[in-house]
């Protein structure tokens, strides 16, 4: 079947089966059940795991088909939010690094939406510096026992499985004593607590591990090779973000240019010029993103240059929410309506913090795009137990 035919069929399936309404951050139990039903349909129609190996439940097709479907799907809203971590990060990591047993057990239920996954890397003392994490996994006769705390975990409240990064050796430098596991989120000792963020809502969770037993066969990769495994996962995360999975577009954004032009008084020349500034920044970034996409299509992998797009998006997000509230004046911050502007200014910092802070993005651009000399590092040689981390002195 040629690509155009594939694309046509995908589109007609989507038109028959997908909604065009907004996906929800937290769908609730009913929403999750509906999402699972949709995912099963999607899988049965052959559109889940399009480029994943056929052996493990995928369709075994190429990136071309994967991209074609994604492009068609952009016009619809698929209720896939709760599956996004599994599909974008955990699954691909298992495809790359999992044992045959892990692949056989996990990949098909993941693709069919029967089981939901979350990712467990960040900790309160290990944000930008993930490798400084403290959650300990101690070897036992028949596996491992894990204790510690994770944070910033999306969809954990619905998750059946988690991809967990732990410390298994404190006597070696921090990158060399980590190991990755598949953890059963229903196991005794796992506590999921919603984390209220500055918007007042709980987009994330905190997870507490209290002597949680993990069977030996759940180790991903080799013992103490967890950092390399995590790099694989994070690479998939970046690809997944830059390809737009799990990220809302600008369409419904009340502070984006197209919305704002209808709500502000452009009769004021200064307001008009500020909208021009917003247009310039939005369009500059949009064109850069399009160029990156065209390069990728042409087989040129943008690599770390994607960090520039992430940084610019974070800055634009802050800029436009700030601008919109400044233009609106007092009504933006004290209101009787749905408070869209106040909501946007509360949410605006999210993109500057999640997926790597702006400072981390600038380091990546400097180090990997511009090949600048690295910062001298003290934390690559010191045994972890002697290293300062977080706010621990």
């Amino acid at each position: 079947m040629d690509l155009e035919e594939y694309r046509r069929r995908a589109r007609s399936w989507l038109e028959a089966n997908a909604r065009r309404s907004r996906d929800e951050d937290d769908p609730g139990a009913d929403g999750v059940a509906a999402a699972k039903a949709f995912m099963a349909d999607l899988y049965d129609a052959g559109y889940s795991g399009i480029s994943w190996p056929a052996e493990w439940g995928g369709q075994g097709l190429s990136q071309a088909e994967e991209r074609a479907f994604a492009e068609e799907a952009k016009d619809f809203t698929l209720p896939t939010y709760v599956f996004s971590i599994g599909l974008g990060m955990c699954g691909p990591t298992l495809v790359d690094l999992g044992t045959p047993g892990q692949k056989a057990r996990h990949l098909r239920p993941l693709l069919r939406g029967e089981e939901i996954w979350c990712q467990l890397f960040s900790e309160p003392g290990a944000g930008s510096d993930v490798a400084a994490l403290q959650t300990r996994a101690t070897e036992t006769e028949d596996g491992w026992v894990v204790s510690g705390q994770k944070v910033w975990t999306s969809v954990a409240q619905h998750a059946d499985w988690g991809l967990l990064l732990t410390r298994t050796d404190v006597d070696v430098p921090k990158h060399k004593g980590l190991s990755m596991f598949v953890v059963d989120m229903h196991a005794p000792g796992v506590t999921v607590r919603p984390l209220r963020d500055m918007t007042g809502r709980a987009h994330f969770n905190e997870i507490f591990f209290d002597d949680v037993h993990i069977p030996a066969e759940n180790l991903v990769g080799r013992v103490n090779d967890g950092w390399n495994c995590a790099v694989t996962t994070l690479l998939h995360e970046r690809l997944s973000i830059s390809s737009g999975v799990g990220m809302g577009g600008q369409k419904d954004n009340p502070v984006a240019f197209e919305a704002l032009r209808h709500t502000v008084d452009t009769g004021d020349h200064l307001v008009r010029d500020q909208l021009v500034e917003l247009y310039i920044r939005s369009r500059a970034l949009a064109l850069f993103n399009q160029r990156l996409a065209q390069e990728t299509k042409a087989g040129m992998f943008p690599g770390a240059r994607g960090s520039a797009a992430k940084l610019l998006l974070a800055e634009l997000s802050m800029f436009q929410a700030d601008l919109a509230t400044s233009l609106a004046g007092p009504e933006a911050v004290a209101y009787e309506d749905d408070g869209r502007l106040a909501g946007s200014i509360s949410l605006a910092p999210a993109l500057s913090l999640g997926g790597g802070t702006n400072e981390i993005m600038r380091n990546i651009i400097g180090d990997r795009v511009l090949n600048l000399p690295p910062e001298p590092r003290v934390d690559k040689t010191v045994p972890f137990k002697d290293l300062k981390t977080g706010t621990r002195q």
Partner: protein
Amino acid sequence: MNLVLTEEQRELRDTVRSFLVAASPLPDVRRAAESESGYDPAVYRRLNGELGLAGLIVPQEYGGAGAGYAELAIVLEETGAALLPGPFLATALATILLTELGDKELLPDIAAGTTVATVALDGDRALNGAEADVVLMVDGARVRAVRGGGRTPLTTLDPTRRQARVESVAGEAVASSEAGMERVRDLFAVAVAAEQLGVLRASLDAIVAYSRIRVAFGRLIGSYQGVKHKLADMHCKLEQAESIVRNAAWAADEAPGELPLAAALAQAYVGRACFEVARDSLLLHGGIGFTWEHDAHLYYKRAKSDEVLLGPPRIHRARLADLLEL
């Protein structure tokens, strides 16, 4: 021009600061903000009783302390830094209005702390409008005091300060003075800028302190130039903001002719600087700054709310242009 605090002024600042640290630390602020009235009346009683702040600028003949705007600015800087919830700024604005227009009816009760007053800022929207006993409504040059009428609470971005829409019902005429209202508006700008200066300073202090204890990649984050240079720029904003607020407060007390320009400058500069510093403080905290439990978002939301409190920020720039005859 006097831009440096006198010894008495430093004492006032230290007294208010110590009081707020002890009586209204941020965990208490959060609790009070979520209470029914949105603030802790006991703290208010002590603020007005022990410290006499409600009557700070009220002339002595009406039971006040008869202090100047320089002193009011010092206090507002501290209540801002502490994010003191409740109607302190609201009552300060009402006091400014009444003092300047020479009211004799309401001031004694306000100075005594028995009446909570506020001002409807753009027609019918008032800080703490639902909680206030009296709302001063301004119609051109005429001001009237409204005691009853409907009060519709608004949802606010800033959890530590409430606002309400106030029904425009009849009330006692307070005074009417066109020139007086001009000056009052300038004084509002100075008062809000003083609060913003406090919010700015507290935001900067918080991230400076965190940068000295938080480690990433084996080093205290304050040792990275990526953080250090940003904090240096934020410090430059603080230095300028403080200079501008002192100058505006001095003009309010001593140089009425210079007040309009000084006040417009205060809103144009300090409002923006305060939001930028609160925003960068939040961002530099990393993920923890995005959590509800951390205080960074309270400063960020207050900064944004204050920036637009007296109208869209561009009006202060437009006023500057007019005053400079550009």
